């Protein structure tokens, strides 16, 4: 399906990347490893084919993980940056006092709100721009629990195209609320963080658990403002709009507050 493909090695992890354009592959050449990969981990489509019907909407460029769409963005540079940031997240495990969680930062006035990728991807870039919120598209973030800061991953190629600082105070963090109908106890919140935590091994499990508990203690999480009922949402655009409105209002309230 994908005309261009490469397997890159980052910190000993082989990651298969596919694209519809050779430019992405060329960017990743320095990390090429001689490993065969039957499956594509990440795919980036920067120039999607036009719709069959002349009245159909032109699809947006997209970044996928397996069969799952991560982001659809009009700006191909943003999408490329997201891919490079995701690849960079494999480069080193979280250092002491830090835990990597599967949440992405939304930045406003140099403060970060961590949210589920699906939540952030549901909001249009236009809304973000209009409200001076910068989404740092990616799959995970590093939280320094001793300073309560979020450390933004440098993209794999180094250097960012935005003026976002690499370390930001953690304003708040939202846990996905899809399967939580009631509030979380602190212990349940820690268990939830461990589900979101990335790169847990036998050697760092104790430290990761302690950091998760420390994070919950110092900055208790909030549940994301709306349940993600994807099926209902798909069949009910009005509900999807309500959910988007709830999320954007909650983000705005938080940053304004």
């Amino acid at each position, binding site marked *: 399906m994908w005309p261009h493909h490469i397997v890159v090695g980052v910190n000993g992890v082989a990651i298969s990347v596919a694209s519809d354009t050779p430019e992405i592959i060329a960017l990743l050449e320095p990390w090429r490893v001689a490993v065969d990969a039957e499956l594509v981990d990440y795919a980036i489509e920067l120039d999607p084919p036009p719709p069959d019907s002349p009245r159909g909407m032109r699809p947006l460029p997209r970044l996928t993980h397996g069969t799952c769409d991560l982001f659809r963005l009009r700006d191909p540079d943003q999408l490329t940056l997201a891919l490079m940031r995701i690849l960079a997240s494999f480069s080193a495990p979280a250092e002491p006092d830090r835990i990597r969680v599967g949440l992405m930062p939304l930045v406003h006035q140099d403060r970060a709100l961590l949210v589920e990728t699906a939540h952030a991807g549901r909001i249009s870039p236009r809304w973000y721009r209009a409200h001076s919120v910068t989404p740092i598209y990616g799959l995970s973030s590093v939280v320094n629990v001793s300073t309560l800061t979020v450390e933004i991953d440098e993209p794999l190629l180094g250097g960012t195209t935005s003026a976002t600082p690499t370390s930001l105070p953690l304003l708040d963090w939202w846990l996905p609320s899809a399967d939580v109908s009631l509030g979380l106890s602190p212990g349940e919140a820690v268990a939830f963080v461990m589900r979101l935590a990335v790169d847990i091994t036998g050697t760092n499990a104790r430290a990761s*658990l302690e950091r998760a508990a420390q994070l919950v203690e110092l900055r208790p999480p909030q549940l994301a403002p709306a349940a993600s009922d994807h099926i209902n949402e798909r069949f009910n655009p009005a509900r999807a709009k309500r959910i988007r409105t709830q999320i954007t209002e909650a983000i705005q309230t938080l940053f304004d507050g």
Partner: protein
Amino acid sequence: MTDVTPPEPLMPQAEAPQHVGGLRIEQLDEPAVDTVAINVSPTALLQHCPEVVWVSLHDEVVVYVTATATSHVLNKQAGLLWQCFDGESRLDEILADISDVFETPYDVVLTDSVPVVAQWISDEMLEEVDDD
């Protein structure tokens, strides 16, 4: 030595918490559905599995099993029971101490605790110590 076999199948504690005489032992998260019945001897010598880490937070204990990448949240009483498994005290000794502390009949503590202990063994949180 009498083997105490938990009810078959084990009920998820979240649905049917053990709650007698002021002692309530439950695991807050949902245990595995396909739990295998495990015989737990009251004199068993048990310890935390080596691939388990845990942390106390307020009244709860969170146990993380690295082998299965799963977390288990224990309430206050279950957390207390959990912390007693040091590989040196036998189950009946631990339960006798809990019976004293909570002023609850030993049989009640035993009945409440054994299914939970069996679940923990099934979930690779606890293992028997070979004391031969």
